[in-house]
């Protein structure tokens, strides 16, 4: 984070603290397009994406203060991703939506550990920690490709373009990484029973 953007973030947070509506305007101006783009990728609907963006501002309004997240963008982006995934569940229930979220969900089916019957997640590591540990062990390119697909919800074509790969090669990389994740999550030491 640069000191400049930190400075902006601090100003925005100060506005939130003062309960100034300008806080929302400034947040929207600084980060709105990025948040909308992320939500749109997940949901495939501009209307839904805009609503998610508003949810993010609402969350920020409710949480700051006491929260003072610096830098602001990663915090907002994480909220945005969570809200969009929540909405994705609603979409799924209503059988609508055409964003990357549905596709990503389907793909991740491959990474689910099999043979869960009779076993329980041991709790020595949270699922989040286990996934983090897995990603850290990946080569940089695989790591980047995986996160661009499943964190930022870029389409396979977009990921390919970002990384100078063919679409086919990207799909193979993703497929193999999903398989590796599955193997990682099936490690015996993560399970009891």
């Amino acid at each position, binding site marked *: *984070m*640069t*000191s*400049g*953007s930190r400075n*902006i973030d601090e*100003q925005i947070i100060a506005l939130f603290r003062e309960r100034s*509506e300008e806080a*929302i305007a*400034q947040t*929207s*101006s600084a980060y*709105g*397009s990025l948040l909308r*783009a992320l939500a*749109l990728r997940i949901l495939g*609907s*501009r*209307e839904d994406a*805009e609503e998610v*963006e*508003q949810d993010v*501002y*609402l969350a920020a309004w*409710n949480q700051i203060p006491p929260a003072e997240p610096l830098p602001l*963008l990663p915090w907002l982006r*994480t909220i945005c991703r969570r809200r969009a995934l929540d909405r994705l*569940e609603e979409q799924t229930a209503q059988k609508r939506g055409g964003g990357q979220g549905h596709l*990503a*969900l*389907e*793909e*991740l089916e*491959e*990474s689910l550990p*099999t043979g*869960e019957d009779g076993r329980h997640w041991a709790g020595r590591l*949270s*699922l*989040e920690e286990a*996934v*983090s540990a897995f990603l*850290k062990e*990946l*080569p940089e*390119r695989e*790591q980047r490709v995986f*996160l661009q697909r*499943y*964190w*930022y919800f870029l389409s396979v074509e*977009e990921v390919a373009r*970002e990384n100078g790969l*063919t*679409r*086919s*090669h990207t*799909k*193979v990389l993703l497929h193999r990484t999903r398989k590796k994740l599955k193997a990682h*999550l099936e490690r015996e030491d993560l399970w009891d029973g």
Partner: protein
Amino acid sequence: MDKKDLLKAIGEVDQDLVEQAAPKGSRSRRTQRWIPAAVAAACMLLGVLAISGGWFKRETEPEGGMMVSKVSIDYGEAKKIAEESESTAPAPAPVLESTTAPSSIKNELTAETTALAETQAPAILYQKDGITVQEGRGGSSGSRMEAELAYLTEQELFTQPLVIRAVLTDYKPLVITQEYSIFSDNKIYAALMSFEPISVLHGELPPGQETVKVFANYYTNTSLEDLSLSLRTAGKGREGIIMLHPMEEWHPEYMTQLADYVPGDNQRFAIWEMPGGGLSYDKHAFIGLEKSWTLDQAEAYARQLIGDKTEAPADFIFSFSYRSYGLVPEDTYMRSFDSASGLYSVKGTAHMEMEYGAENLETRVRVEKEILDKIYRALLRLKDMPEMLSDGDNAGGHETTRIEISWFAEGGSRRVLFSGSDNGMDRSDVNRLTMTLFELQQYLEKCTDMQGWQEKLMAMGDKERRARSEEIVAALEAAFAEQYGPGGKPEYFRAAEISDGGYLEIWLFPWSKENQKEIQEMLPEGYRTGMLFGWGDPADSPSIQYDHRMSLALHGTVQKQEGRRKIIDWESLGEGSPEKEIRLGYLYEDGSRTEGYSISFEEDKEEWTPFASLRMVIRGQEKDLESGLITGRQDLEFAWYCCVCRGFRPVTQEEKEAYGEPLAWIYAERDEVESSIFLVMDNGRLLRSSGTWPERPMPTDPSVDAVTALETWGEEIWLQLLATGLWYCEGRGEQTELGTPGLKWR
């Protein structure tokens, strides 16, 4: 644990990882433009600029200097509640509207459009030869976010062939579908718009023309929306400045239907007046405009730019330097130019000097008068910028950019210095600065001398890179020989490959940081950088040939079968288990032994119909194939039209009887111009037609009548392959309730 848990868990990984993986699209748009420019050129310019003190006064004085661009927001009832509330409790959360329009107006517009949408079912407007043009709906999911556009300067935008101020009198969103396209992206989002001109800013209207009809191609939703103006609110009566940007010719038959329309690419080329006041446009394209202006002010500004014939004074001299820093301060990249000497130089990190040779990173450029005038005009935009522009308090922070522009003309001088980061913020000054630099870059790139230098430099880079990669490979082999004896190598080392651009890729299996480090440390000093490491077998590389194995990777939902319908999963491909191999050695293609075939089914999750993409490596070259299961009448007809019918004429009854009914097809693009389609017939035969096809076959294009061979094959291996594929797809068809024709497989 389910997949949603997993997706959420991925969302909670360390932010450092997430930030490192951030795609270009999630950075600022300015950055997005810079990156390709910086990489591609290893060359160009930059700069920054700055200011002065009132040197050049313009009649229309933009309101500048705001820290962050203003967005006006309608807080609706919440604001009233907040104002009325005297309580010390936290104010109610504002209700953010996504448009600057007052909610009352917005609601009216929305209601109007909604009513239209409800009463008018989408209608087919035009249908011929596989093209269907259908009425669209405002705000459909047709929005496209990733438009990659050529950069046009503000002045260029205002000097398109026809620039008018006009009222939108009719608007009809369209979805154009190319049914015959076998590629996934076969929809185009467009619009038909009618405008009533109020005034012509640039270009000429035909005498007596009272209406301008525009067929706006691509990205129409996004362009009209422009972040705030929803298509649903782009109702009749809206006034704007429209720049008609020429579009490549559309299908001739369709253009006949559009004889009255001017084809144009609408992306970014519109400035709309908002119902509640202010303007809506892409602020990254029109950096001199202010959102708060009226359309009259915008028009005056446009006219000023269009008519700006200002020439550079005879004594005009300027220079700039642009320095960007990597993650570590010593990792820098600097471009500089001095118009007095014409010296243009690029200085970068070691790898640049390595690839291009330090002595080649500078050149002398002769700047033509016209270019110099443009540069001068571009600098005028910076007239009111402060001399020192800093991205906040940099104490202890990491500076990513440092730009300095000095400028001398008519006895006065100016200097603008920027330090900090120009990423992630919408500060108008920084925006103006970087966009001006872009203009400088564009203009300089148009210098003949500069173009020649760049071409030379790029070629030199490829050559040098390859030479160095070859040196590294040789050094690596020598290190292996020394450590492991002749021909020896570490067990985990699989291959070293040099790509077309001369890049070196080293494959390790398993890959680990330790293994990578070990390889690097085996190399002499100076050879430990400039290579990519990959995890896997050489076969992971698209440029490397597979051996004679065929695999069907049908994912976990498919049970393995015994006997001839054996399925080999993807994982076993790398293991080379002999019992899982299916020899393809006797498959011939054009008389040559096809030892390089490797085929795998890969389910395509992006299609909601049974669809598989194939990956094939033929003689060392990767080919993407597409295949599909015929699941319904439409697909069946499609297959016949595309694969069996010479020249796309309708299939005859005789041919149907002779060939049988196709059950599935595989499209195989053998090389750039020739492709084959294999059809599995219900009589157990495999039908192949091949010939020269254009990349995107257009049924009415005369050159498409090019299917040169039609033959039936009985090769057991193909039948086995396709039967298995069919069996798989059939199972999936049941799951997705799409239905399949009766499978008459023997």
